């Protein structure tokens, strides 16, 4: 079983590898979830696929030696598949999902019943009013997602995020404000960028962090969220 967040490179027919994020990987193949329209959906059942991996650093869940009690997951709706392997990795799991509008939210029935689901939309058409970063006053009948997120951050033992990386500096700031001295790896952020080589050779996957440029393929794709704090 690969670490959630780690990846394999798959030959789906194009001139470059496609990263897949498996939930199960053994000699018989792998199980992964891809968005609609992904190149993998064009494969005929039973087609063998050439794979390289597993590669990269996934989510680090058990640093203190005991299983997790309280895990918070935060995702934009299009990034949900990358967090799916984490849905049952702690006694209590809360999942915050943000979408542009109601129609893009996932159906609650697609989640394990024990998981606490918190929905938010940018247009307020369902759940909390996004974006997740914003707290404070809301239009009548709506509640800001930002306040709820901060509550959950104080509750959680660990936070795993999967969003557009451009939002991570703001999330890192919020974590620093809500937690006193958050430990390294308390909040971990998944980054999705093209990874043509997967071994640190091509420099296509570089992302800028507080510790200098890092390669998502070898130092990531999961990074300490605090590495994204503005310097």
């Amino acid at each position: 079983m690969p670490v959630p967040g780690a990846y394999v490179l798959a030959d789906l027919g194009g001139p470059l590898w496609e990263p897949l994020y498996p939930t199960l990987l053994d000699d018989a193949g792998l199980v992964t979830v891809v968005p609609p329209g992904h190149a993998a959906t064009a494969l005929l059942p039973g087609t063998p696929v050439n794979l390289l991996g597993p590669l990269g650093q996934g989510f680090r869940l058990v640093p203190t030696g005991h299983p997790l009690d309280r895990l918070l997951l935060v995702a934009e709706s299009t990034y949900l598949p990358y967090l799916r392997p984490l849905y049952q990795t702690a006694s209590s799991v809360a999942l915050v999902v943000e979408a542009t509008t109601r129609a893009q939210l996932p159906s609650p029935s697609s989640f394990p019943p024990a998981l606490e689901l918190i929905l938010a939309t940018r247009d307020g058409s369902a759940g909390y009013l996004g974006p997740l970063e914003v707290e404070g006053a809301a239009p009548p009948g709506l509640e800001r997602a930002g306040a709820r997120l901060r509550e959950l951050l104080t509750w959680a033992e660990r936070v795993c995020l999967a969003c557009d990386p451009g939002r991570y500096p703001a999330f890192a700031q919020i974590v620093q404000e809500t937690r006193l001295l958050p430990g390294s790896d308390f909040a971990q952020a998944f980054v999705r960028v093209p990874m043509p080589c997967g071994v640190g050779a091509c420099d296509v996957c570089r992302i800028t962090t507080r510790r200098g440029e890092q390669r998502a393929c070898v130092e990531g794709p999961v990074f300490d969220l605090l590495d994204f704090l503005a310097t």
Partner: protein
Amino acid sequence: MIELAPKHKYGLPLATPLMPASGVFGFGDAYRDLIDLALLGAVVTNPISLRPRRAARGQRIQTRDDTFVVHTGWPNPGLHKVVRDYRDVWSHLPVPVIVHLLATQPTEVAESVGYLSSIANVAAVELGYATQATTRRAVDCMAAAQEGTLPVIAQIPLERMAAWAPRFANHGADALTLTAPPRAVLPISNEGLDSPVAHYMRGRLYGRALFPLLLNVLSRWSDKLALPIIACGGIGSPQDALDCLTLGATAVQIDALLWKDPPLLNRVGHKLRQRRPAPTADGESSTNPL
């Protein structure tokens, strides 16, 4: 055994006429788990500048059919830091290292080659140029590189072949890498968003489609340039590598096609080891059968 710098006082002998192209293999041993590095003639580093360069902003790669455009901005922490980080790796590689330098200013090039002359297992420098650089500047950088003690290979952009290749050959380059990938532009796919404003990215073009352009360059130029030529561009099979040698190349570089197919380097390496010796002078001409 081939010799890539026959006129240089120390020469540049390689056991196999095979190496990765700069920009696709990292700064040292990134591919150590996937490739038998001993099958290579040399390792060529990603482009290195004297001062640090940050990664380009915006989208860095875009595919179209079998081709793709890459735009990294040649990020690197600067020559001194690269050497600090990799000199140990380099000294333990089973093959020599060719350091690719971004040739921007003659003074920087001179400083860089001076610094590199004392680094263990660095056997040559390869100069890379901005496609838009002036010919004057490019030649001056060449001259500056020759102030050092290492053999100098110049990598010529496809677009600058006619203007630069003869000049470089006459100004003392030890070998030429033909060619650096051409610049190309593709629209950026917005993952299905029907954006009203079109966005485009410019970068280096890679893919098997470069190979017929490479063979054209080789067949036109190999007879006219009296120095070793390293063929680079879209080589995707052992047979492609052999075709390059048939058309006058002394060695080959495998470019970004190796990302998806790292064993390609092993396959080409094995094939080149089995190769028959070149035909004798009284036999069929071995260069330019076109």
